[in-house]
């Protein structure tokens, strides 16, 4: 039974969508189906987390031959990194369904179900071809959701997202093929399992090409500075559930890719060139933050804020010490929760006012105090105010940065300041001041909306106040992984 657990987690949403589409359910039934499937998956993931041993390395591994001629297998497994992301996805999905409660366009629900399958598949697959399959699969629902249910120049922005992401995927495919073939040539049999491929060694001149193939895909997904042109338009045009997934989960998958595949397949290259990527991420960190200040639309502002923080996570990854890695993994959790919260609230705000232009808003606090409290809380968690989880994570990354290099540490620490700047200024203009035209008669949060936001709030508070509850869970994995890497390349 346990061997089927991971497959069940991946495919329950998919089959829900398939069965519902064959039965041609009405949207209320489809809604019940979707919520039920997401709750079942959440239950299964919790069960999985309970069984999981933080010291145990890769667990629940399942390998079934798929295409034997080329050694491609259906190869799943879970470790701390994937479990963290898995927990986040399965937690967010029911909340998003709650947000979509009155959504009567059925395609919306189908796409969300397929999206969940794609994302969990990406997180759990350990075979590179399988990973590539799910990596592409999760793009499609997002593409359709932006293009069909989005706003603004949705068709154009959806296509931009698609083409840029596909460009990355194609270069990754090339690298995957090259890895597989090299393994065949060196060891005499085909395999695409990343554990087998990680034993390969390349000369630096070839390794850099193989690594860039992967890094391009991940850099576009994150997005690092220079690969970000799709980000703001796509975030701006997405419907709320899609933007929550984009920011909270899909962007993290770029980080996940570097972590899972980068640091096993070509760790030497990553360590050798880490300085370049750190500079790129630093530019992104500061640049996105400054651009965020200048934005006039809430969603675009938080898109850039999200980009800035993802650059911070990337920084933490490339400092490659125990503090920064702990911080990065911790930030993945807290940023996902906080950005999901803030984008959901922007969605609620849009439902009420039909605008997300900061200029048109104002004075919400006086009319809807509860809304203002939640909104402030999430915004402050994004900025990393002490008491929220973001603070702990940012602190850890900054400590790691100082350990890496003094000046880079100082530059990294600037993120705290810049984030405070754009958050507080935004809060001042939207929540306080005179009541804007759009915000007249602003309704406060309903019970359903509070239920939707409460889990995120509680988790953010716990991660902020009592990080010691979570650190023992993620620390063993980081220690082991760092040790393995430093053994492989002879010292970091």
């Amino acid at each position, binding site marked *: 039974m346990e061997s089927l657990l991971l497959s069940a987690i991946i495919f329950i949403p998919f089959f829900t969508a398939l069965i519902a589409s064959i039965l041609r359910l009405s949207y209320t039934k489809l809604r019940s189906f979707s919520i039920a499937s997401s709750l079942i998956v959440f239950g299964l993931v919790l069960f999985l987390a309970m069984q999981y041993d933080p010291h145990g390395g890769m667990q629940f591994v399942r390998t079934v031959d798929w295409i034997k001629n*080329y050694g491609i297998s*259906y190869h799943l497994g879970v470790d701390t990194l994937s479990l963290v992301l898995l927990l986040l996805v399965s937690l967010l999905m029911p909340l998003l369904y709650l947000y979509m409660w009155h959504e009567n366009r059925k*395609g919306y629900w189908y796409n969300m179900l397929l999206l969940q399958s794609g994302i969990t598949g990406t997180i759990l697959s350990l075979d590179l071809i399988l990973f590539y*399959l799910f990596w592409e*699969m999760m793009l499609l629902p997002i*593409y359709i959701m932006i293009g069909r249910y989005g706003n603004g120049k949705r068709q154009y922005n959806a*296509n931009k997202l698609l*083409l840029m992401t596909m460009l990355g995927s194609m270069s990754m495919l090339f690298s995957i093929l090259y890895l597989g073939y090299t393994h065949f040539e060196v060891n005499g049999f085909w395999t695409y399992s990343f554990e087998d491929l990680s034993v390969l060694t390349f000369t630096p001149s070839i390794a850099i090409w193989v690594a860039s193939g992967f890094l391009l895909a991940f850099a576009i997904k994150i997005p690092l500075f220079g690969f970000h042109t799709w980000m703001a338009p796509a975030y701006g045009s997405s419907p709320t559930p899609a933007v929550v997934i984009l920011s909270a989960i899909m962007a993290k998958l770029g980080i996940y890719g570097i972590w899972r595949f980068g640091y096993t397949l070509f760790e030497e290259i990553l360590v050798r060139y880490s300085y370049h990527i750190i500079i790129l991420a630093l530019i992104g960190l500061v640049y996105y933050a400054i651009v965020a200040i200048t934005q006039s639309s809430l969603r675009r502002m938080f898109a850039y804020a999200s980009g800035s923080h993802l650059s911070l996570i990337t920084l933490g990854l490339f400092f490659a010490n125990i503090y920064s890695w702990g911080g990065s993994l911790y930030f993945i959790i807290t940023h996902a929760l906080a950005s999901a919260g803030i984008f959901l609230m922007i969605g609620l705000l849009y439902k009420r006012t039909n605008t997300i232009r900061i200029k048109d808003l104002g004075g919400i606090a006086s009319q809807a105090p509860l809304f203002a409290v939640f909104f402030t809380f999430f915004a402050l968690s994004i900025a990393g105010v002490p008491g929220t989880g973001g603070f702990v994570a940012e602190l850890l990354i900054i400590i790691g940065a100082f350990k890496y290099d003094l000046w880079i540490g100082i530059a990294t620490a600037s993120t705290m300041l810049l984030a405070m700047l754009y958050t507080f200024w935004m809060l001042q203009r939207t929540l306080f001041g005179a009541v804007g035209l759009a915000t007249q008669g602003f309704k406060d949060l309903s019970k359903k909306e509070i239920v939707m936001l409460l889990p995120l709030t509680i988790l953010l508070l716990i991660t902020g106040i009592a990080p010691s509850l979570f650190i023992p869970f993620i620390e063993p994995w980081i220690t082991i992984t760092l040790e393995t890497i430093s053994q492989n390349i002879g010292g970091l």
Partner: protein
Amino acid sequence: MFALIEQFYIILPMTIVLIGAFTLMILSHNKSFELKHFNLVAVLFLTIALAIVMIQFGNIPKGYLFEDIIGKVFIVDDFALLFDIMSITGVILTLLINTDYFHSRSYFNGEYFALLLFSLFGMILLAHAHELVTAFIGLEIASLSIYALVGYHKNNHVSSEAMMKYLVLGSMTGAFFILGTALIYGVVGSTTLNDIATYTNGHNNEESILIIVGATLIMVTILFKIGAVPFHGWVIDVYEGSPFPITMFMASTFKIAIFAIALRLYLIDFVSLHGQWNFILQTITILTLLGGSWLAITQSSIKRMLAGSSIVHGGYMLIAITSVGAGSQIAVPAIMFYLIAYFLSAVGAFGILSYISASGIKQLTYEDFKGFSERRPYLAIFMSIFMLSLAGFPSTIGFLGKFYIFTAGVESEQFLLVGLGITTAFISIYYYFKLIAMMYFYPKNEPQTPIRYTFSSALIVLMAILIIWGGIGSSLIPFIPSADALIDIAKGAINSIG
């Protein structure tokens, strides 16, 4: 050496196809016969032929038919039988999936089906040909029927123009084949593939210069037929001008048959010339990939876009052929897999187009598909699946096809070609997803039409399921061949060619 009775058993499928063609021709004089009867008769004959070939496949030792009478002209091996299976299945599917279309156009009649079967007969001959003149006869039988079929809509000037274009250019390139054969005969003194191979293996390139010239001329004909750049001038206009069933037939089935002879020639006959040719083939592959992509991008009609993209798909297969020359072991099964993958996707895509246009719309442009997902949600899903498969999106058979081809390219260190192949695959995302975007991103611009559940729509569903199964199919479910089994079959067939 086969016993006499065995030889008749082997030739049975071909004979049935031929008898079927003649029967249809005679029946077409009977005015009381309706179109669906002709369709039924044709499918009936083909199904019997297919069943026999299926039984024969894998159970017949390699040999030559009527060897004591005509020599080593007509080869029987698993390779040829596999191509027989593919071509016959192709024609059956073309006939069935277009049922609606046949009824919606008044110009179809009994001879149409006869011509299709004659063409199929030529293709089977082509797959079994082990001698250049026989190959030419097979090629011309197949082509001549297609010339007539392209211009079948007599009153339509586009159709007639397409036929003229194809007829003139096709006959001219056919002459290249004959000239090449003559040159080779002049050197070797025989046109049997074995003799040519023996000669080229025994002599160095200085002595066999005429063979190189002759083989290159033959290659021109083959490249013309698969629409490689720079021999692609006819493709778009002919595909556009032909009735849908014929476009489908040319894009999928006819291409398969051409690759049958191309592979046989390249694998047995001209092995020693690989070094000479590789540069030419590489150049042509690059041109085909880029030129085809350019043509596909610039079209506004779906039919023309599919025509342009069929050139690109030819380019992918040329990558694999180049890899064969560069010493790849896995390239040939990859081509056969790709042929099947492309065949399924193209038949599906053209099938939907013909199904839609059966209800009256003549021009099918991107614009016509605006809001299609609201009018026909299920058809839109299937169309998306076909587009995804053509684009090589994972979880479809098209992805595995490209995966095999690119792996073969990497194996023979053709990094430039594989890089370019991946780039064109990326470009193809644009024109395939444009259709998906049209279907899903725009509101409907015309009222809902009632949905007809016909045999054609059932087949479209079948195609979609096959495509998905071919992409993800595992051996978990017993008795259903997985994606893996398909490549095993192809490998077995290649080994039989020897």
